[in-house]
């Protein structure tokens, strides 16, 4: 057991820090070209798609280097390494694993160069957690599919150019996981209609997406017909180290502690209240547990041992912390905590109030906590399936 980094790993960390010192000016000094330059520069460093094979424009980055890169970026509160979160997180890896040579050539460079934003068409009105039961239909006609149906809760749909879409190509199957196919569809295809949905925080991030007789050429199918479930599951299983999230959460905890230091509760400093102290300490303890869980799982991966579904452990911690930390800040500050931005009484410009209404972005997207509990109980503890 040791927490030392090798000389090469240390050197890599220094390289990232040096880069950030030069390329990440303080927020108030950033000009209008900042983001474009940032994206170009991180791309030149090979840090976009860092873990992807070199032949597809990645850097073959090792597990520890990936964790270092994420950690340093999070410490510096740097912008993302590309504009398409989903493109980098699973569309790209899915195409590298299952795509044809032509698909790799067409799609991968645009993801790496932040030229195209991808969204993900999985959930449907009646099929969210029960994803494999999807009904959105694709019928093969000659050299293309014709897609009819609806997706919902599609994050980023209003500003995405492409969608990775799960459709049903076969309704006559004994198991619902069969008969599903994965298609790559331009959002400007005739027959695609996007209706943004306003969420409870007042944002319009996600949308309903309707497909009416949308023609999708066969060469836009990812993987074989009927293999959509496999493609999706293995792309989503492209589990990333949680170190970046942990660093972000430690940063948020620091902000919360600062709020506690400057807040009174029943006329006394909140920092002296045993319940407040204990709550903050438990947040810190759980974030630290995520960190050390993550390092244990990273060690397993480095040793080449397969990970089971252990990453669901940190997902559950993150879900409860995302909800509880914001909620705690709102409760702590009483009536002022309820105020959104726009008044001098609002706490931290209303940012806690706003984020206390935004947690479903993280908590529900990618599998609800109860789905994570099913995964742990069934795959790790061996309980019978529902």
């Amino acid at each position, binding site marked *: *057991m040791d927490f*030392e980094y090798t000389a090469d790993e240390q050197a890599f960390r220094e390289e990232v820090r040096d880069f950030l010192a030069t390329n990440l000016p303080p927020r108030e000094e950033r000009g209008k070209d900042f983001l474009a330059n940032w994206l170009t520069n991180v791309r030149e460093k090979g840090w976009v798609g860092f873990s992807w094979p070199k032949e597809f424009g990645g850097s073959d980055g090792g597990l520890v280097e990936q964790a270092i890169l994420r950690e340093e970026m999070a410490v510096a509160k740097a912008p993302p390494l590309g504009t398409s979160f989903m493109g980098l997180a699973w569309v790209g890896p899915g195409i590298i694993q299952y795509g044809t040579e032509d698909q790799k050539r067409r799609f991968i460079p645009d993801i790496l160069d932040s030229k195209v934003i991808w969204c993900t068409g999985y959930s449907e009105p009646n099929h969210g957690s029960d994803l494999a039961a999807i009904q959105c239909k694709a019928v093969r006609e000659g050299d293309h599919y014709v897609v009819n149906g609806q997706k919902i809760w599609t994050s980023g749909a209003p500003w995405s150019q492409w969608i990775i879409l799960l459709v049903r190509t076969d309704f006559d199957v004994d198991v619902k996981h069969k008969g599903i196919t994965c298609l790559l569809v331009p959002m400007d295809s005739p027959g695609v209609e996007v209706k943004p949905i306003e969420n409870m925080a007042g944002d319009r991030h996600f949308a309903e997406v309707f497909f009416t007789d949308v023609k999708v050429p066969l060469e836009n199918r990812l993987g074989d017909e009927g293999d959509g479930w496999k493609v999706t599951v293995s792309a989503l299983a492209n589990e990333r180290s949680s170190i970046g999230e942990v660093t972000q959460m430690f940063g948020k905890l620091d902000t919360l502690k600062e709020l506690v230091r400057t807040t009174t509760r029943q006329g006394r400093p909140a920092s002296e209240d045993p319940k*407040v102290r204990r709550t903050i300490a438990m947040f810190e303890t759980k974030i630290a547990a995520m960190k050390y869980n993550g390092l244990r799982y990273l060690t397993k991966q480095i040793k080449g041992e397969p990970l089971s579904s252990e990453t669901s452990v940190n997902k559950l911690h993150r879900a409860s912390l995302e909800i509880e930390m914001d909620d705690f800040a709102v409760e702590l500050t009483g009536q002022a905590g309820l105020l959104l931005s726009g008044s001098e009484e609002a706490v931290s410009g209303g940012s806690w109030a706003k984020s206390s209404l935004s947690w479903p972005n993280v908590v529900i997207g990618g599998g609800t906590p109860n789905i994570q509990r099913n995964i742990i109980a069934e795959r790790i503890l061996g309980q*019978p399936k529902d």
Partner: protein
Amino acid sequence: MNFGFTEEQNMLRDQVARFMQEACPIPKVREIGASQTGFDAALWQQAAQLGWLSLIIPEENGGLGLRWIDLTVVLEETARGLCPLPIASQAMTAAAILRCGSDSQKSSWLPAMAAGEVVCTTALYDDPNWIHPDAVQLTATPVEGGVRLDGVKPFVPDALAADYLLLAYRGPDGLGLAALSRDQVTFTPQPQMDSTKPAGRVVMDAVTVGDEFLLPLSEADLDYLTDVGAVAVTAEMVGAAEAALNMTSEYAKERIQFGKPIGQYQGVKHRLADIYVDVESFKSLLYYAAWAVDEAPDELPRAISMAKGYASDAFARIGIDGIGLHGAIGFTAEYDIQLYLKRSKWARPMYGDSDYHLDRVATLGGL
């Protein structure tokens, strides 16, 4: 970067697990718990021969010169089967002597401890729920060539099995540790909720202890000993909690109600998943704390307070839910899950409960 165990540590873990299955299965644990002293000399000798009593003792004092992370492996695995041997008490005493003792005390006492020729225990605090120097209340009066102890140590783990006791006292010049042999004191056994963790009250009636049996104890030393004590207890909590989870999880697969195994119901399987999350998490925190004892001592206070702060309440809840998920059968004396409930209650206050440790995490974190 390697947050895992070495090949040797994995072999040690397997060795302890085998010992527990073969030499100290639960029926044996129950038998020892029901005995007068709660101790088994034959098993103790086996543990000594396997080297488990000498792990953290340096080679020059007859030990193996290993680390707390190695000791953690042994404590985790022995506690999985609720082993009643006072391995943790022996280690705590060794830790106190190594930290506070003179060279001659180390060389004259540690080899016999490493070999298991003597059983030792240590008691620090006299208030039942207060981790603070003022909670060391046994007083000592200076006399020619030593001190005189008059009073009581009310909470002494493994008191009845111990040949020697290291007891914290308060003298006019501060705190100290006094090494006493069993024939200098009188014992009163205390019926315990958890019979696998025997303890007793120790009474000293004008006992004179010579200077050569006294060790200085600074407040920093007291903090350190409390922290490593918490590492030992939390290591035992990890093993015991994991066993309670496995036992309950296996039961949920077999117990049929309404025509299905109860583990198929989300009310059951989700609670099992939450228990898994908790055990994994305080295990990771504990491993880091155990590593920090020897490799990053500055980080020990915060690391162990996180681990024990998390584990104390979580394990207590696991003990209760282990019974609840078993239903009425879990309430019977015959079923083993109840032994784990009792162990979880034992572990909660030892070397600080959640309130103590989490408040300390808040302080160390700048609040």
